[in-house]
């Protein structure tokens, strides 16, 4: 009895202080999400289902924040690295180096400019409106 309680405390301690263990937990949730998405043929990627599961468990207090926080911070801090290999697809699209690439760049730049302006102004105006009405 004493032994098992000690083991529980020791495991808990390990989980709260090891990034690698927490990374493993997050990967486990991602695999779980993938499996669910495939089984039920959901259009959402496994990562989003895993996110929903972890968020639900955190909100229900079934897992504590400190048992996933270090791992999550590590993944989020290095997120740009995970995008890098996809950019290398440019190796197979040398046709984008000419006029076509320039055109695509114009479409993407102006499009992104429009999206950012529209989204930010909508959210900002609505947020100001709700704040003002909440204050009344």
């Amino acid at each position, binding site marked *: 009895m004493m032994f098992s309680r000690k083991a529980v405390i020791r495991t808990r301690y390990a989980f709260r202080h090891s990034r690698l263990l927490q990374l493993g937990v997050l990967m486990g949730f991602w695999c779980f999400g993938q499996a669910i998405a495939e089984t039920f043929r959901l259009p959402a990627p496994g990562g*989003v289902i895993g996110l929903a599961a972890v968020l639900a468990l955190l909100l229900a207090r079934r897992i504590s924040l400190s048992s996933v926080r270090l791992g999550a911070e590590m993944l989020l801090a290095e997120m740009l690295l995970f995008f890098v290999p996809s950019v290398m697809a440019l190796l197979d699209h040398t046709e984008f180096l000419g006029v076509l690439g320039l055109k695509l760049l114009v479409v993407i730049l102006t499009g992104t400019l429009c999206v950012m302006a529209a989204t930010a102004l909508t959210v900002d105006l609505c947020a100001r409106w709700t704040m003002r009405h909440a204050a009344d």
Partner: protein
Amino acid sequence: MPLTNPLALAVFWSAATIACYFVARQIYRRWPRWYLSPLAVTPALLLALATILHTRYGEYMRGTHWIVLMLGPATVAFAVPIYEQRKVIRRHWPVLLLGVVIGSATAMASAWAMASALGLSGALRLSLLPRSMSTPFAMSVSGDIGGSPDLTAVFVMMTGICGAALGELMLNWLPLRSTLARGALLGMGAHGAGTAKAREFGEEEGSIAGLVMVFAGLLNVLAAPILAYGLKGGF
């Protein structure tokens, strides 16, 4: 001496990718300019290396696919900042959702209009439509509406690189009062790359950008069949 062993190739390209990333990150830490973003500098270094070594994309990707797969656990990791900002989000989610709807509509309409104006059509134009979402969502939508998912993945990356840089400039121009709008701008305009950028501004911006990115992806995946119907002349 050309490397032929697939395992050696995988180790070599993984190590090269991670090494270039850390070099680029140090450069950015020293000189934080928008054009020195690790998302632009790392691929530039690697593209040069791959060109010198005559490596094709398929060969590179076979060894480094696991790095891309880490985006899955990284998405799960967003549960933590979203949980930490739950009060802000619970209060403002309708506003964020409205921003996502307007942003997604603007993304598709502007891509269609600009592509048509520049004489791009067919699969190329369709592949440009979902470029404001994060890659897994964008590729799924692209396939649904008759575009090419591979091309879309390239456009998503271009959007990420341009958007993270552009977002920083826009935040200086636009008179935005709320952290909510700043996070939404980056999450909607430049998906994951924008979210990483938003985290440089603050915890709250970062988690809102992450949430907006997930919202945008889900909404578009759900709307894709309707959109496909419309594009085929159903309306």
